[in-house]
């Protein structure tokens, strides 16, 4: 066999191909033209040309979120690279695997403030899992393979690979070598839970009278959702999800009590606040969950399972820390119960469920839909019916995101794609595009607001180029709804810069991009018109729904209170 000799630029493309990459999201520019030329000369790796690099990162990110693949971004140096920063931070905060290939000026120019030079490794350092600079063309395949390995293993995250232009020179070829296995002496995540900790956790859970399972995005990234359901059913405990964990247990499962936290359900937050044992699985006790940490679940013993030891006891002290991958640890716990024949206090368990059902009966998600205007909650409920609850749903950030999380019960993991940790407005549309690239046969819906949608609306052009018939449902209230809600509740209704003057005519706008636009404003026709829009299978349809302007998201935790101190409506104390 003859040794394959390739240029640095060709090695980039060959390495991606060898790693099974089908799609790369990017934008060309001076320092990566050699890579683009190499892309042009092959057909295995498809490049998707975005209109702004930030959108490329969100597309790649959502591609990762909705599959087991790793989304790849290719951008040029300088502004191309810095435009990726928001998208990299978004992926980092939600522990999403992604590889960003950024061009760089030639090695001899680095540090000279050359044209389109930016210290990308420096800029991205706080928001990446790791980063590499390729100092020689021969290193490129190995470095890209390492980047893929790091992005996906352990606690996943984005990895940047910086590629100085001189190492991509198409006229200099080198031996191509792709390692079959990656080993890093300094990186070896703990996968299996320590047997002593497993024993402690399993025993505490079986002895619990009021256990709660608090499951986050880590369950989904570990592909441990079936195990979560088996585990929950064995323990017969209520399961609550973080915003990132939604879909890890079906939203219609009888043991599911809904999302917890700032806009969590009454029953979820009440269960947490009254639990005697809480097991956190791949969740991180975010401030949007805990509310005031001093008052957080004071009566509960906390078991915290996570693959990242630094997450454990960071915000809330864990009584029983377990470091390991969620799938392995859940198996270990189930095995331990089986072997030790542990049983639980069934009387306490029925009392616990009786209490939970009382909380459920408060029906905290009910809302008044008799006002003659369309309520945002109503739109999500109608959408759920129109899509049979099966569509991939992406969202932007704000009230519409919370309404979706609360009113669309997700049936499977990776179905719900949103920016939880960073809260990036402008995420939803490119995310829907990334999902559609990965699942061309599936229904993909972006739920957005009139603020968020305008932050990456230029991507409607990309949708036309690549024929991406996604559906965009805009909850248009003419305001930055979540900002306004806070101003109503905390700033005596002083609406400082929270309303959107001069909104475009969205229907005309999407028509200009070659798509279909629909306005919906009559509550009595909502479901029928939504159904009609979804019947246009091969078109991108932008559905502009005029919704009630003054609606707030409830439940909502009271500021500085305990996890279960909540408002259930405007001025409605629990």
């Amino acid at each position: 066999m003859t040794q394959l000799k390739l240029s640095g630029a060709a090695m980039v493309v060959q390495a991606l191909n060898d790693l099974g990459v089908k799609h790369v999201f990017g934008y060309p520019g001076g320092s990566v033209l050699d890579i683009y030329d190499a892309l042009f000369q092959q057909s295995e790796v498809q490049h998707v040309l975005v209109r702004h690099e930030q959108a490329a990162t969100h597309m790649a990110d959502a591609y990762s979120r909705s599959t087991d693949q790793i989304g790849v971004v290719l951008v040029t140096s300088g502004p191309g690279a810095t435009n990726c920063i928001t998208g990299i931070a978004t992926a980092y905060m939600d522990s999403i695997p992604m590889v960003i290939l950024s061009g760089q000026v030639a090695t001899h120019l680095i540090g000279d403030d050359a044209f389109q030079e930016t210290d990308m490794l420096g800029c991205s350092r706080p928001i990446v899992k790791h980063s590499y600079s390729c100092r020689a063309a021969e290193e490129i395949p190995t470095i890209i393979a390492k980047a893929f390995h790091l992005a996906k293993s352990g606690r996943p995250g984005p990895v940047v690979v910086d590629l100085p232009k001189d190492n991509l020179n198409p006229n200099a070829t080198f031996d191509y070598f792709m390692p079959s296995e990656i080993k890093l002496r300094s990186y070896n995540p703990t996968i299996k839970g320590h047997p002593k900790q497993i024993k402690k956790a399993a025993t505490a859970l079986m002895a619990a009278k009021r256990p709660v399972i608090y499951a986050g995005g880590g369950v989904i990234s570990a592909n441990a959702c079936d195990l979560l359901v088996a585990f929950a059913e064995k323990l017969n405990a209520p399961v609550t999800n973080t915003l990132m964990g939604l879909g890890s247990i079906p939203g219609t499962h009888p043991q599911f009590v809904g999302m917890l936290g700032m806009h969590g359900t009454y029953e979820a937050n009440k269960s947490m606040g009254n639990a005697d044992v809480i097991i956190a699985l791949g969740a991180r006790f975010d401030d949007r969950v805990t509310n005031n940490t001093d008052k957080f679940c004071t009566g509960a013993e906390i078991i915290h399972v996570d693959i990242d030891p630094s997450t454990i006891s960071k915000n809330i002290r864990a009584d029983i820390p377990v470091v390991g991958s969620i799938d392995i640890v859940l198996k270990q716990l189930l095995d331990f119960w089986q072997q030790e024949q542990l049983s639980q206090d069934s009387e306490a368990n029925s009392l616990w469920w009786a209490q939970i059902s009382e909380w459920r009966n408060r029906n905290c998600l009910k809302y008044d839909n008799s006002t003659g205007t369309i309520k945002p909650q109503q739109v999500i409920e109608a959408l759920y019916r129109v899509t049979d609850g099966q569509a991939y749903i992406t969202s932007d950030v704000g009230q519409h995101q919370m309404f979706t999380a609360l009113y669309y019960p997700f049936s499977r993991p990776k179905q719900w794609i949103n920016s939880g940790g960073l809260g990036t407005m402008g995420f939803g549309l490119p995310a829907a595009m990334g999902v559609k690239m990965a699942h061309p046969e599936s229904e993909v819906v972006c739920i957005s607001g009139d603020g968020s949608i305008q932050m990456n609306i230029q991507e409607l052009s990309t949708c036309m180029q690549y024929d991406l018939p996604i559906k965009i449902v805009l909850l248009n209230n003419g305001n930055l709804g979540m900002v306004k809600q806070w101003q109503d509740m905390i700033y005596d209704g002083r609406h400082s810069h929270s309303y959107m003057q001069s909104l475009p005519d969205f229907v005309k706008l999407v028509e200009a991009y070659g798509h279909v636009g629909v306005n919906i404003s009559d509550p009595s026709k909502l479901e029928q018109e939504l159904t009609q829009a979804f019947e246009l299978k091969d078109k991108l349809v932008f559905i502009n729904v005029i919704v009630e302007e003054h609606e707030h998201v409830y439940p909502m935790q009271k500021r500085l209170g305990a996890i279960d101190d909540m408002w259930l409506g405007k001025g409605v104390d629990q």
Partner: protein
Amino acid sequence: MQTILSILLENEPGSLSRIIGLFSQRAFNIESLTVAATEDKSLSRITIATNGDHEKIEQIIKQVNKLVDVLRISELSGKAHIERELMFVKLNAQTSDAREEIVRTTDIFRGQIVDCTNQLYTVQLSGKKEKLNAFIRSVKRQSDIIEIVRSGCVAIARGATALKP
């Protein structure tokens, strides 16, 4: 309370900036930091003096350990260990009395005079932070301090314990 951390990491471009960046990003303190390549040139060793309560130190150790370049981290201050800091002090010694006083004090602290001119003495001193501080307090009384440079602390565990890849 001061905590001394010893870190073994890949000697790669940017690996030091990842450590320093992590400390500022997560609002951890650095009292001092020293770094140099080890016998094995592919590895660097860092000694960081920091402070914080037990929870804070635990979090610092976990966060540092999470960096892909880091092979090992050990908290030395909780164990039997030896720590030293090197200091140079440049002193103004214009009168013979002052010069004699400096020689005497340097002698008491087991330091050395490593450079002198007609009017200046430069003293080299090593030891724990407290000893170096005490020396400064003593010489301040007799002469003007022109300049001080301190290395920050380096430390090693006593006995067989070693930080190895």
